[in-house]
């Protein structure tokens, strides 16, 4: 037995145990770092719930803002948010997908696509207020859309466009080349290949990118304030469905609006604490809206991934 306890072996054991200790230390540091983020988020949510939960009621969702905090609600804010999000999706998604497909499938790798690519990646990092300033000039003054839902939606559409493009490109890139080659081998044209294979296979990733973009847009305040969202709105935009021909109306696109983050900001800057509770309640609603969208993104991705069998 004594013979095995050579100095080299002792040395090696020592090294192993010191490495194990380091491993252990890093494990603790890593866990601690993770917990900090988690604890912060958790405290924030708990705090929000304690303050805001008692205020959540049917009445809160169906009332307009008011000078009496107990009577105030978020009807105009959540309707505004949903309408703006619809315009944002309608503007950013088709454009973003088309641009992504072009860059991946059609665009030749030359200096122009390279330039577009660099720009696209940089655009994703531009502060949102810059988009607001651009939109103020472009949509409000130049195209004269006014301070409307259309302007707000298009502004946020610009903001999330790079995200949609990047998500589209990444999910298209994940499709193996053999699929394309198999399609061409059977005589399919480029468009047929894209329409029947590329888009269906990448739609999960594209939808995820779109929804993550929308979840960012839903919380944006700065660009929306810049283009003139209002604070007190005690009416709903005109109805999209009408009784007379053609039964659909797009007048709501040009109506003035407010969104959830603006309503929250207004309440939080009031002197009365009762308004701060309202802001917390609106925060919970906004948080749930974002979580639902993110959850939906995860579900969609899961569903599409599961069905694809190469």
């Amino acid at each position: 037995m004594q013979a095995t306890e050579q100095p080299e072996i002792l040395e090696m054991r020592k090294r192993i145990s010191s490495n194990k200790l380091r491993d252990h230390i890093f494990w603790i540091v890593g866990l601690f770092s993770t917990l900090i983020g988690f604890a912060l988020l958790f405290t924030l949510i708990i705090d929000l719930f304690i303050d805001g939960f008692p205020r959540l009621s049917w009445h809160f969702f169906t009332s307009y803002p008011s000078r009496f905090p107990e009577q105030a609600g978020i009807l105009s804010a959540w309707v505004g948010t949903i309408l703006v999000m619809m315009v944002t999706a309608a503007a950013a998604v088709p454009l973003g997908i088309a641009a992504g497909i072009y860059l991946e499938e059609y665009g030749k790798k030359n200096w122009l696509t390279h330039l577009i690519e660099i720009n696209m990646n940089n655009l994703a990092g531009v502060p949102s207020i810059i988009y607001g300033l651009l939109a103020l000039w472009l949509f409000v003054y130049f195209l004269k859309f006014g301070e409307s839902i259309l302007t707000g939606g298009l502004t946020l559409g610009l903001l999330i466009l790079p995200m949609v493009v990047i998500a589209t490109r990444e999910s298209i890139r994940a499709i193996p080349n053999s699929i394309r080659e198999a399609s061409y081998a059977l005589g399919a044209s480029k468009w047929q290949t894209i329409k029947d294979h590329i888009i269906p296979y990448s739609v999960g990733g594209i939808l995820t990118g779109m929804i993550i973009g929308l979840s960012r847009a839903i919380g944006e305040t700065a660009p929306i304030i810049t283009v003139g969202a209002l604070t007190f709105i005690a009416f709903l935009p005109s109805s999209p469905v009408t009784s007379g021909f053609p039964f659909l109306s797009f007048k709501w696109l040009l109506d003035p609006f407010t969104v959830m983050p603006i309503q929250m900001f207004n309440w939080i800057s009031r002197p009365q604490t009762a308004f701060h509770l309202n802001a917390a309640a609106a925060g919970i609603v906004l948080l749930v809206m974002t979580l639902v969208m993110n959850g939906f993104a995860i579900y969609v991705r899961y569903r599409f991934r599961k069905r694809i069998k190469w």
Partner: protein
Amino acid sequence: MKVKGLAMAVFALLLLMAGSVQVGNVVITGMLSPAWSQEKIIKIDGSSTVYPITEAVAEEFQKAKKGTVKVTVGISGTGGGFKKFSRGETDISDASRPITQKEIEACKEAGIQYIELPVAYDGLAVMVNPKNSWVTSMTVAQLKRIWEPAAEGKVTKWSYVNSAWPDVALKLYGPGVDSGTFDYFTEAIVGKSRASRGDFTASEDDNVLVQGVASDKGGLGFFGYAYYAENSDKLKLVAIDGGKGPVLPSEKTVMDGTYYPLSRPIFIYVNKKSAQRPEVKEFVDFYLKNAPTLVKQVKYIPLPDMAYKLAAERFSKRVTGTVFGGEAKVGVKIEDLLKLEKKK
């Protein structure tokens, strides 16, 4: 195949969305048609100080009209509000100070005539931390020493202002430079509108200022009296000596003008052309008629009934222009205001 079907459905939906934008574009061209502009919308923007009053009036007015008239109220600050007003984008502008010479000229250039109506009184409160035991009152000269541009980077300790005060760091909090409140305070204290040191914590959100002063032993800040009233446990109010001994702000001292020079009237400005529209006329009449009760409800100080009567008269006669001549006036008392109103 199922994947394909679902994917195509999603794609079709996206195309449909894209299509709806196209239809929307057609509507945009239709937007400039008279049918749209005939809709009864009253657009108001401007001061965040006046906002709670206008919001209350708008709320009651829409209830009274059963939703046939739409009122929108924004918060762009007094200066920002006047910019929109002088471009003809709004019907009414909320203002926490009288219109300035520059803004008068901008309106003139755009051919916009306006009716100036005082709607309430507001006091600016100067606040320190409750742990601050050395200050109960300050003179205007001391405040000036603290806030004037020359103080920047120099007056950094309380002891520099008054040698009897301790050697504690002086931390300043004030509203953003786009607000009428900032304009008024600098005019009243420093003697020149917008002249101030730059090294203070500025925020458009007065609660940030409340938090700042409440958590900093050497803190000093100024903001609307309503914010003090809601946070009286976290802050200590400073009496202001405007030459006749220290006076604390209260409903009474603001109203009778003894809280000098930090009490001020606040206004709405009505576009004369907009006032021809029946719904705007009705709204302004409603505003002045209900102001005494509504102003109190949102914790501001109403003008005497006489002042509202004179304002209503002024409005019905469509008397345009400002009684302040484009200059910032400090510590206008109710009687002075009434005299000025009568003269017009």
